[in-house]
C-alpha cells in the first residue's frame, strides 16, 4: 500500500505501445503481482527442499508476466483455467497466498480443503476453474465456460492458460474449432517456455505455432512473454474482442521457466544449457524489464521496488506460517464431496 502511494506521487498517465492508456500505478501493481508470484514460488521451493511439502510442484518463476499481464485484463467474475504450473495464474486471478499454501501442504483451510494440492488448485469465487494435471484439459473446460457465459448472456470471458506442450493434444483443436464456429468468448493463452518437460518444443511441434489457431479462423498474436506491458496490451484487446461477441483469440507468449520442470528436476544439463538459463535470467527477466522501464520513464525508483518486494516477501512468509500451522483435514473428509 505504501508503495502504491509513492507510485501515485510520480504518476502521470501513460500511453503504452498499443495505444491503451494505463495509469502508472497499474504498472506498479503488476510489478507487485509478479513479485508476489516469484516470492510465493520461492517459498514453495523452500518448502520442498525442507521436505515440508508433500509431492512435487511446478514453479512458475520466470513466467510471471504472462499470468499477470493476462489476468490484469480480466474481471473477477471472468474465468480462467490453469495447468500443473498453476500457482502464478491462481495468484494473478486474485487468490490469497495463505489458503494457497495451505492447499499445497494438504491442510484443511486450503482452497480445496487439501484435497486438490498444487496440480488442482482452484478458486471458485475468484473465477479460477482449476489447475489441471491433464495437459491441455483446461482448454476444454474454459471453452465450455465460455459457452456457458454466452448462453447465460453473462458477459463473462474465459481464458485458458497452457504450455506449448498442450499443442500436442488433439482436444485443443476440437474445442478451438467449436469456439471459432460459435464465436465463443474464450482466449487461448499459450505459454511457450520452450520445453515439454525435458524435450525441446522444436522436437515436438511441426510447422509454425501461430498457424494452428489461424487454421481454425482464430486471430493469433505472438508476444514477448517477458514483457508484461506487451502481454497486457495484447490480452486486453483479445479479451475485449471476446467480450464484445467477436469470438475467440489466441496469444502465444514466449517465455521461460527458470527452474526445473518440477522442484525435483535439478540436473538439467542433458536437456538445456546453463548459458541458456543464465541468459534468460539476466537479459529477459520480467521483473527487471518492467522495473527498468518504469525507472527510465521516471515513474518509479529503486525504493518503490524495494518496498513492494519487502511487502510481498513478508506476505508470503506469513502465509507459509499460516499454512504450516493449519490442521490437516479430518479423516472423515476423505469420503466427502465425492458427490454433491
Amino acid at each position, binding site marked *: 500500500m505504501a508503495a502504491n502511494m509513492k507510485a501515485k506521487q510520480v504518476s502521470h498517465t501513460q500511453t503504452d505501445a498499443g495505444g491503451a492508456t494505463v495509469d502508472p500505478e497499474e504498472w506498479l501493481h503488476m510489478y507487485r503481482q509478479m513479485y508476489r508470484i516469484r516470492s510465493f514460488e520461492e517459498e514453495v521451493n523452500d518448502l520442498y527442499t525442507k521436505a515440508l511439502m508433500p509431492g512435487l510442484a511446478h514453479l512458475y518463476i520466470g513466467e510471471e508476466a504472462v499470468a499477470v499481464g493476462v489476468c490484469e485484463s480480466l474481471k473477477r467474475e471472468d*474465468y480462467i*483455467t490453469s495447468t500443473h504450473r498453476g500457482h502464478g495464474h491462481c495468484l494473478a486471478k486474485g487468490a490469497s497466498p495463505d489458503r494457497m499454501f495451505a492447499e499445497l501442504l494438504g491442510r484443511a483451510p*486450503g*482452497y*480445496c*480443503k*487439501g*484435497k*486438490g494440492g498444487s496440480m*488442482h488448485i*482452484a478458486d*471458485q469465487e475468484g473465477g479460477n*476453474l*482449476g489447475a*489441471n494435471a*491433464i495437459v491441455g*484439459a483446461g*482448454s*476444454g*473446460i*474454459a*471453452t*465450455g*465456460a*465460455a*459457452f*456457458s*457465459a454466452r*448462453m*447465460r448472456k453473462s458477459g463473462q470471458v*474465459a481464458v485458458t492458460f497452457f504450455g506449448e506442450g498442450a499443442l500436442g493434444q*488433439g*482436444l485443443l483443436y*476440437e*474445442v478451438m*474449432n*467449436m469456439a471459432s*464456429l460459435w464465436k465463443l468468448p474464450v482466449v487461448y493463452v499459450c505459454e511457450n517456455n520452450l520445453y515439454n518437460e525435458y524435450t525441446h518444443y522444436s522436437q515436438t511441434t511441426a510447422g509454425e505455432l501461430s498457424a494452428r489457431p489461424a487454421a481454425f479462423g482464430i486471430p493469433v498474436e505472438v508476444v514477448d512473454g517477458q514483457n508484461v506491458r506487451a502481454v497486457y496490451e495484447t490480452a486486453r484487446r483479445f479479451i475485449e474482442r471476446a467480450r464484445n461477441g467477436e469470438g475467440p483469440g489466441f496469444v502465444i507468449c514466449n517465455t521461460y521457466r527458470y527452474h526445473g520442470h518440477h522442484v525435483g528436476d535439478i540436473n538439467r544439463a542433458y536437456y538445456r544449457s546453463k548459458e541458456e538459463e543464465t541468459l534468460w535470467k539476466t537479459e529477459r527477466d520480467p521483473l527487471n524489464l518492467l522495473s527498468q522501464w518504469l525507472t527510465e520513464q521516471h515513474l518509479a525508483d529503486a525504493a518503490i521496488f524495494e518496498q513492494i518486494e519487502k511487502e510481498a516477501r513478508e506476505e508470503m512468509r506469513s502465509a507459509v506460517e499460516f499454512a504450516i500451522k493449519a490442521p490437516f483435514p479430518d479423516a472423515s473428509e476423505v469420503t*466427502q*464431496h*465425492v*458427490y*454433491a
Partner: protein
Amino acid sequence: MSMLKTSESTAGATNGKAMRELTMAQAVREALAEEMRRDARVFIMGEDVAEAGTPFKVLLGLVDEFGTDRVIDTPISEPGFAAIGVGAAMTGMRPVIDIMFGDFLTLTMDQMVNQAAKARYMSGGKFMVPIVFRTTLGATRRSAAQHSQSLHVWPSHVPGLKVVLPSTPYDAKGLLKTAIRDDNPVVYFEDKMNFTTKGMVPDEEYTIPFGVADIKRAGADITLVATSSMVYVALGAADKLKEIGISAEVVDPRTTFPLDKQTLVDSARKTSRAIVIDEGYERYGVTAELAAVIADGAFYYLDAPVKRMGAMDVPIPFSPALEDLTAPTADAVFQMAKTLCGRA
C-alpha cells in the same frame, strides 16, 4: 411379460393414474422436453441432434420447440464437446451430452473420469458438475465390433459418476428426469435395440430415485438380477421357468451406481439362488460386481453359487450367425436357472 406394458412393478406409484403407452424413444424425448421446459439451464449437445434428431431419431422434434441454441449440433468431436459440457456444467448450466454410440466412450473417458467425476472432490466441494452423458449399449443390431459394445462397467467403476440403465419406458423417463436434476455427472445408457419397446407411462409428472432396484416380477425360487434389455431376457426365462414350476424373481437394479445392494441381497436370501445377467462383456464386467455383492451379502442363505451371464468375451462379430451367440438369451438363462435349481 405384462408388466412391461402395465408397469406392474411400479403400480404402487402410479395406481389409478392416467397412463399412455409410449416407446422408449418417446419416453426419453418426453423427459428431455419436460426438463428443458422446466429449467432453462438444460441444453442438448451432440452430433446430428437437432434437425436429424440423432440417427435413432430419438430427439426428433426437440429442436422445433427449443431451437438450435438449446439443441446444438456439433462437429464429430466427442472429446471436445464432452469437455465443453463439463466446463458449462461447472459454470451454471445443465448439459445433456449426446454420445451417439456407447463405443465412443473410448474417446470421452478423460472428460468423464478425470474431469467431470473429479472436479467436485478435487475442489473440496466447490464445483458442481451437473451433466448427463446420454449414450447407448447393446448388440445384435449387426453393427459389428465398434458399434455394439456395452461399456457401462467403466463409468460404474469410477467414484464421482452415477450410471443409469433403464429397461422400460417408465424407468427411462423417470430416471432421465432424475439424472438431469442430479447435481453430479450421470452416464445414462439406452439399449439401442429397445428404442421401439413400448410400455405404460403416466400422464402426470414423476421421477424415479437412483439406487432403488425394481422387482420386475416377484418370485420365490430363484433370483434373476438383470440390467437394461437383459430384463426382457430374464422375464422371458421366468415365463419358461414358470411352465416347469420354478418361480423366478426378476430384479432390475436400474442404476449400477448407486447400487441397491440391499434389494439384490434380500431377494437372493429369500430365493437362495441367483443368476446375474448383463450385456457387458462377462470378464471384469457388471456381472462380477453384482455376483460378488450377492455372494457376500447372501452367503449364509445361498444353496448354489451365484452364476454370471454377460456377453461372450469376444469383440462383437458382424455376422448374424455369430453375433446372436454373444448375448445372453432367455433360453440360456432358463437352462442355467433350471440347472441351478437342481432340475437337470
